[in-house]
Structures are given as C-alpha cells and as structure tokens.
C-alpha cells in the first residue's frame, strides 16, 4: 500500500500540512531574494552582469555604482574547478576502495571516518586553512623566506608584493580547503551509486574471466555513471554555495579579472563572498549596507540560485542521456 495517491485521513492531512511548511518557506526564500534584488537590475542595469569593473572603497579609484559581477562569476568557476579537480579523484578512489578493493576491515573504517568527517563544519576548514597556507602554499608557491632583493632579481615577475601572495589570500587556498570539505560529502554518494550497480552484471563480467580492475573500468563505473554525475553536481553546488571558506581564504571582493585569466594564485572572490562582502560593509565591525549595495548583495544570491538550478537541470539531463545509452 506504500506510496499510493493522496487520500484524506487525519494522518495524511497532518503529513500534508507539515510538508507544506518547507515548500512554502522555500517559495518565500526565492521570492524574497528576487524581490529585494530588483533595484540592482532596475538601477544598475545589465552592466551588473557584463562589466568586469567592481568599484569599492578598497579598489583604488572609488566610483560608486560600478557593480560588475563578471570577476565574481569567473572566481566561482575557478574555485569550483580547483576544488573538484582535487576532490573528485580522491572521492572516487575512496568509494572504489571501500566498495571493491577493501583490504580486511579497512573499508569499513574508512566508511565510518568519512561519515564523521562529513559532519565537520566549514568554519573548521576555514580555521585550518592557516596550516595549509604556512606548510604548503607559502613555501611552494609564494617564495616565502626569500629576501626581497633576491625575489626582485628573478626574471619574469610582473610585480612584487611582500610574501608574494597578496594578503595570503588565493583561489588555490580556497580550492584546497573546499576540496577537503566536499570529499567526505561526495564519497558516500559515489559509494551508493557503485553499490546500486546490479550484482549480476559484475558477476557476469567476472565469470567471463575479466579481472576485477577490468570489471570496474568497463562494467561498474559506466553503469554507476548516472549516480556519479549526481554526486558531482551536488559537490559543485556545495562548492559554489559555501561562503565561510571562500570569505576566509579568498577574500571579499575583486576588481577586474585576474592576469592571466587562469591565475589561481590571485584572490578572485567568488559570488558568495562577494555578496557577503558587499552586505557586511567590507570591513570589520561595519554596519550592514542598505540601499543599492544591499540590492546587489541579494542579486549575487539570485545569480547563485539560477546557477544552482541550471547545474541541477544539466545534471538531470546528463543522467537521462547516460541511462538511455546504457539501456539501448
């Protein structure tokens, strides 16, 4: 009798009313963000989407009303690429290890550890970023510990800044910390996808003489492809939706695109921390912004919402294509 059409009993009525609460609240969230961000479109115009200049009190020449979100969109793309390039192989390897290549009870231990790590809040990773910075990024990328004269004598440096990385903020650091955040989030989802592959398929492949590695490459992973795509899309959404780690490690605002475009050692603030920066007044202890600043901050949230739905839609389409190719 499970999952039949709705019919009126007291229990089902209560369940319906309780379900209406999150649906209504979700609608309210969307409508609120859209309504508050209306002035950003009507007053700034479409420049907000196509301009690379973002003017604020810290960006040198202050020109009020210049809100170009192209750097923020580019920063979102960059940080998502870095985080997923690092996190996806690790999450895939963890899922494959736990489900197919486990040694003794190690697979169960790692599964439990993943569940525990998944509960670590983003603020802890933001706090831990200082260790990654001092142990990995500064010695390997920033020329930390080299004298100023020596660094200035090196060829090919466009400009010099103390410690090389301005303010110790960089897209690379943000990407590394975000990848640590999403590995324990994606790995169980990929694991579920691999476990949902029918055992008959794998056994048929093994019985035909294929090795376990061959079975994994040519039977298990292609069949689990749809679930892996879903896990990947949720990982992307978590990456671009996080505000604490990006504010802490990448910073609040970026005027103009990085040079060269793919420079991950520059701090290109993504949409979330740009919005948070505009709203919180861009300096410690400032009062929250009002007026056009507030509208632009809500507009970044609206962009994120649109982006999230686009990614979910694309992932669904891709899943449908994969399933159709498998069935044909």
């Amino acid at each position, binding site marked *: *009798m*499970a*999952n*039949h*059409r*709705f*019919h009126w009993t*007291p229990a089902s009525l209560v369940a*319906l*009313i*309780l*379900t209406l609460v*999150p*649906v209504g609240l*979700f609608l309210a*969230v969307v409508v609120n*963000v859209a309504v508050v961000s209306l002035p950003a479109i009507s007053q700034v115009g479409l420049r907000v989407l196509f301009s690379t200049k973002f003017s604020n009190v810290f960006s040198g020449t202050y020109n009020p009303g210049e809100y170009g979100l192209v750097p923020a969109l580019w920063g979102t793309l960059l940080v998502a690429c870095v985080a997923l390039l690092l996190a996806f192989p690790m999450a895939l*390897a*963890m899922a494959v290890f736990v489900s197919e290549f486990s040694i003794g009870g190690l697979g169960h231990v*790692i599964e439990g*550890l993943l*569940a*525990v790590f*998944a*509960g*670590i*809040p*983003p*603020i*802890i990773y933001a*706090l*831990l970023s200082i260790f990654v910075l001092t142990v990995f990024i500064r010695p390997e*990328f920033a*020329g930390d510990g*080299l004298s100023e004269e020596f*660094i200035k004598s*090196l*060829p090919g*440096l*466009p400009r010099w800044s103390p410690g090389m*990385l301005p303010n110790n903020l960089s897209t690379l650091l943000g990407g590394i910390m975000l990848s*640590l955040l999403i*590995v324990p989030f994606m790995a169980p989802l990929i694991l579920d996808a691999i476990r949902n592959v029918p055992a008959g398929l794998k056994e048929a492949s093994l019985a035909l003489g294929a*090795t376990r590695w061959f079975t994994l490459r040519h039977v298990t992973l292609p069949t689990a492809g749809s679930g892996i795509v879903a896990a990947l899309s949720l990982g992307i*959404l978590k990456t671009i939706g996080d*505000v*604490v780690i990006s*504010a*802490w490690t990448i910073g609040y605002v970026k005027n103009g695109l990085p040079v*060269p475009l793919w*420079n991950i*050692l*520059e701090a290109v603030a993504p949409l979330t921390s740009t919005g948070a920066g505009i*709203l919180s007044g861009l300096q410690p*202890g400032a*009062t929250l912004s009002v007026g056009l600043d507030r509208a632009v901050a809500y507009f970044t*949230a609206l962009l*994120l919402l649109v982006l*999230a739905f686009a990614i*979910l839609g694309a992932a669904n389409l891709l899943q449908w294509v994969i399933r159709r190719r498998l069935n044909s």
Partner: protein
Amino acid sequence: MNMQPIEEASAGRLKSKQDKPIVYSLRLVSGKATSAVSLVVALGAVLSGCLMLVRNTLEIYSLPILVGLCVILQFLFVDVFRQHRSWDYKIAVLSLVVFAGMLFLHALPEDVTGWQINGVFHRSLFASLVLVSSGLPALSISLFYLWGATPQADDISHYPLVLLPVLFALAVYVGLIAQLLVKGIPNLDWGILSKPYFNYDWPLKITVDDGWPTWTAERHSQLGILNHLKGTGLLMLLTSLISLPIGAGAGIFLSEYSRGVFGGIARFTITALRAISTFILGLTALSLAQSMDNTPLAGIFRGTFFNGWGTSVSTGGSFLVASLILSLLVIPVIARSTEEGCRSLPPELREGSLALGASDQTTLFRIVLPWAFPNLLTAVLLGCAEAGGSVAILMFIAGRGDYGVGPLSQVTSLAYLIFDIWYGEKSFRGAMLPYQFSAGVLLLLLTMSLGIAALFLKRWLIKRHRGEG
C-alpha cells in the same frame, strides 16, 4: 592464470643454464628480487614525492631517487625478458621518462618564475610531480611482476592507484586535525569555559555637579565563551524541536502519499533546499529579522537585551529566527532519512498488519514509524551537528551574547565566535585571538562526537529493533 606454468617452466630452463649468453651475463640477481627492489624504490619515490609537498628541503633527495628508479627499471626490463621471454616495452619507456624527468629537474633553477604569475614556484613542486607520476606506474609494474604476471597480479598492481589518494586524503585530514588539537588544547582552560564574554559601559555613579546631573560610566569586561557554548546548545535544541515534526511529516508524506503532482513538488523542494547555498539562507535570515522592524513584534524577531534601565531591541536577529532558518537546512536531512527508513520496511510487515484488520493509520503509527525510528534519530543528531556548525546563516544576524542567552535574545554560537574573532572588531579580536583555536577544538569535538554517536546509535538501534546486522 595460464601464465604461471609458463613462467615456472622458463625459470626452470634458466636454472639449467641453456640461456643466451648475453641475457645470462646480465643476470645479477635471481628470481623476483629485481621487482622487489624496484617496488621499494618506486614506493620511496611516491612517498618522498608526497612528503615534498609539505617539506621542500626534501627536494635534494629527488635526483638520487630518480637515478635509482631509472637504473632499477632497466634491470627489471631485462629481468622480465629473462623470466617471460618477451620484452615489456612499457618498462623501457617508463625508464626513459624517468631519465627525462631527471634531466628536467637538473636543468630547473631552484626558484621558478614566469607566465606573468605573481609568485615564485619552488623546484620541489615539480620534483614531487615527476616523482609521483613516474613512481606510481613503476609501483604498479613492479607489483605486477612481483606477483607473477597473472590476471590476479593485474588486480593487485592497481591497488596503489586506488590506495594512494585514499591514504593521502586521510593523512591530510589527520595532520590538519592534529595541528588544530596541538594549537587549541593548551589554551583551553576552565576560566574561559565558565565565564561569558562581555565588554560594555555600565553607568555607575550619578553625581550632581553645579546643578546638572552627570554620570561616569565604568567599563566592564571579561573574557570567556560560556554564552557561546550555551548558544550552540540552545540553537541545536530549538532547531531540532522545529525541524523534527516537520521533517518527519514531510518524510512520511514523501514515502506514503507522494504519487500526485504535489508529491513531485515536495520532492523537488526537498532536493532544492539541500542544493541551494547557505549564503541565500543567511540573507533570508537577515530579511526575516528585519521584516518586523518598527512594529511591536520587533523584539521577537530582532532579539532584546537588558540595557540597565529596560529592554532594548538588538541589531541582529533572535535565536528563534536563526533556528527557523537553520531548520530549513535540517528538514531535508530528516525528511530524506525518514523516507529511506519507511521505504526499507519489508512489505510483508505492512501487509500483515493490514490483513489483520488494522487501518492505514494504525499501520503507520505502529509498524512504519517504529521501523523508521533509527533513521529519524540519526538524522536529528546529524541535524544538530549541522545547526551547531553553521556560520553562513548566522553571519549577518549574530552577536556576541554579552547580554545572555535565551530564545528571544540575539543569536550567538561557537561557530560564529570563530568567525567573529577573525572578522569582528579590533578590540574583540585582540582579546580573544588566543582562544580561536580552542573554540575550534570544542566545535570539532562537539560535531565529531555527534557524528560518531549517530553512526553507532544507528547500527545499535537497527540491530535491536529490526534484528538485522
């Protein structure tokens, strides 16, 4: 599988000294010793490559290791021919690649600049790249031949490829958490835990001086995180109280009655709530807190505090608003988990109950819900951890809790404290900076213990209630 006898036969032939002289003269070591040695060297290359990422002085060992790897791969190349009577050109190519990498590293200056990038790349970065990317295939190949080049050896030889990222990730997590403990535990003392933080002017003396009353304010300040701890607990309690009935109801609806159009909408909403950014929810919390300004309800939404004469409205949002928005984050977790629990009920149990004449509702309350109870409890614990650790939602409405903690006072929590120490006022930052890592340790212990409790409680309850492993 059929390669084993051939290999044994060829090994036997070698022992009878009927080889070609050139191969025989190159036979320095016998049996599997070459592949064992190359396994050790390749393992050393991979490990040192990983360690070079965190200690760039280790880079001086990269050239000797690469030389050793290059030489041992050439020995392995000949040895494989000696044993299997076929040239494995992969090994030769890999040896050449190692040699090229060696030359590349030798030619590279210690500090590399260029590509218009505002940074100095240390050579160890390239060294670790070369070491790992050549050490992994070498590890794979030597394992393959050490195991006897059988199909089973093919599986074994791919273990490093799977195991290395896993061990690397675990090492990073364990290293970072250990660093946090080392930094945070020494400053964690009872004095901090038992006192709330406050820092405000309190009017003390009112004196009447030539006709006009004047008062001198005395500054009260105290260090401590008691109110942040209390706030985290209150946030968890309120959030689970709000989201438990709603999440459970939505989960039951999704599993029992969700075939219609509204079922699709509800399912989409639960997915979308999980997918949208916490930043959007933070903005919603701000809007909700601001929505009742200049009305009598402002105190409920904004939070109030006792200012010495009466109550005044704070500039942030109350615990009630924060936990309402936080529950939007927790409801999908509980709903998904409840739905999964209800769906895992064996149909025989439900049909048995219905066949005995029980109504739909009785079946729901007596059979389905008790079955889903372990899932529900786990989800509530995980939701508590989420509520305690979330900063994005409190970002624009939280305060320091100087004036106490209650459902209608301004929201604060341990997670927000860590953020506030970094981005808050200078005086607060200066006073509390030594305790930032201590707060991090407390938050980590809290969320991890909730996660571990959820993990074991679920296993134990499922064993007890459902009688399965």
